[in-house]
């Protein structure tokens, strides 16, 4: 027969023993009144503790302890937190955008770089178009000239690049949020083999930077040039030398009074 210890009695009182062990304890208790008294005491303790605290489990559960409600509140909170975070990001973004838009334009030497980038973007987008490459066809040179001159707020002639082997396809008006006037003109030319070049022209107001810059962006070369009145970026896949030759013709026609440009390559 196994030894019945105090721990065994306790385990018996707490209902921890299996049927076999319980039967052995019961047999032992029948023969040992002291152990039986001790067990009775343990059982009395257990039922007293039950009597003290068990009623709490029978009370109606307050709604704040309903897991479904808590889960709902939690997901709502998480959503609110996310919304709040998004709002903070949004406000920061607006602040940064406003800071960028309201920055003193003349203090920003990188603005011309932005113009070059915009010129290349516009070039990439529109030279790929066939029927809609231009907004107003090159047949209407006079109309184009007066329209774009009005919109840009500066006199703009439509350069003739026939001597360089390019025919005039036409032009379009583009937004140019980086500069004070907010508008730019794009003129498009095409040679006999179908290669196209574009001129991206903006007023020079508020644009600082070098008078000339030649950069390569992707497959295209971009030649930027600024006079006191306008900036012009010539974009095309042609080698730099061809663009320069073309640029001389363009500059002469856009601003006949300007001196011949001096190239600075990067």
């Amino acid at each position: 027969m196994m030894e019945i210890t105090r721990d065994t009695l306790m385990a018996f009182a707490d209902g921890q023993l299996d049927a076999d062990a319980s039967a052995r304890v019961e047999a032992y208790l029948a023969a040992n009144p002291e152990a039986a008294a001790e067990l009775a005491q343990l059982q009395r303790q257990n039922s007293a503790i039950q009597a003290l605290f068990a009623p709490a489990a029978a009370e109606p559960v307050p709604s704040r302890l309903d897991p479904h409600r808590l889960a709902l509140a939690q997901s709502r909170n998480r959503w609110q937190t996310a919304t709040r975070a998004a709002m903070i990001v949004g406000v920061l973004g607006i602040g940064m955008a406003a800071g960028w838009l309201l920055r003193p334009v003349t203090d920003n030497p990188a603005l011309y770089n932005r113009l070059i980038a915009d010129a290349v973007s516009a070039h990439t987008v529109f030279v790929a178009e066939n029927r809609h490459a231009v907004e107003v066809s090159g047949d209407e040179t006079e109309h184009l000239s007066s329209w774009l001159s009005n919109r840009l707020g500066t006199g703009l002639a439509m350069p003739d690049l026939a001597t360089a082997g390019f025919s005039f396809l036409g032009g379009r008006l583009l937004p140019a949020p980086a500069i004070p006037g907010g508008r730019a003109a794009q003129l498009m030319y095409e040679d006999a083999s179908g290669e196209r070049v574009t001129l991206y022209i903006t007023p020079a107001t508020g644009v600082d930077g070098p008078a000339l810059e030649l950069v390569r962006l992707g497959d295209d070369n971009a030649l930027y040039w600024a006079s006191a009145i306008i900036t012009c970026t010539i974009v095309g896949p042609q080698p730099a030398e061809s663009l320069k030759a073309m640029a001389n013709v363009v500059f002469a026609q856009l601003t006949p009074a300007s001196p011949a440009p001096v190239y600075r390559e990067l």
Partner: protein
Amino acid sequence: MPSDLVADFLDELETCVPALRRYARALTRNIDRADDLVQDCLERAISRRGLFRPTGPMRSWLFTILTNLHRNARRSEYRRGETLDLDALPELGTPAPQPGYVALAELSRAIDTLPLEQKEVLLLITLEGLAYAEAATILDIPLGTLMSRLGRARATLRQLTGAAQEPHLRSVK
């Protein structure tokens, strides 16, 4: 977690709430503090339900969370220098099956004098009726430690309630 699993999880959680309230009430002796504890426990369980493996017993997991929250709360109460009012005894609820047989108020005061580690063991076993092994897992202690704490708690109670000297001891069957 798919939404029907979430609903199952919440339903199962709901079935554990009465036991959690009972245990928390016995630990804190304060209905508001106890329900705050249970609410914290449920919120934690809901936000960590991804960590809960549906195969394990949810009850053990919840008791573990509640026990830890209670210990943390007590630690910070001690840091703040708050004291528990031992005289503010709760209502005693339903009377014992044999009224007056054991002085419940005396027992209640005696339980309050127990070290927390003994009190936790005592309540998980005698009040919640958990298996020793499950309680040992919840409290993260070896089985032997659990049994010795339980034995010491009972001996203290017996001494403090004067049960050892009671001449009219009778067996409760």
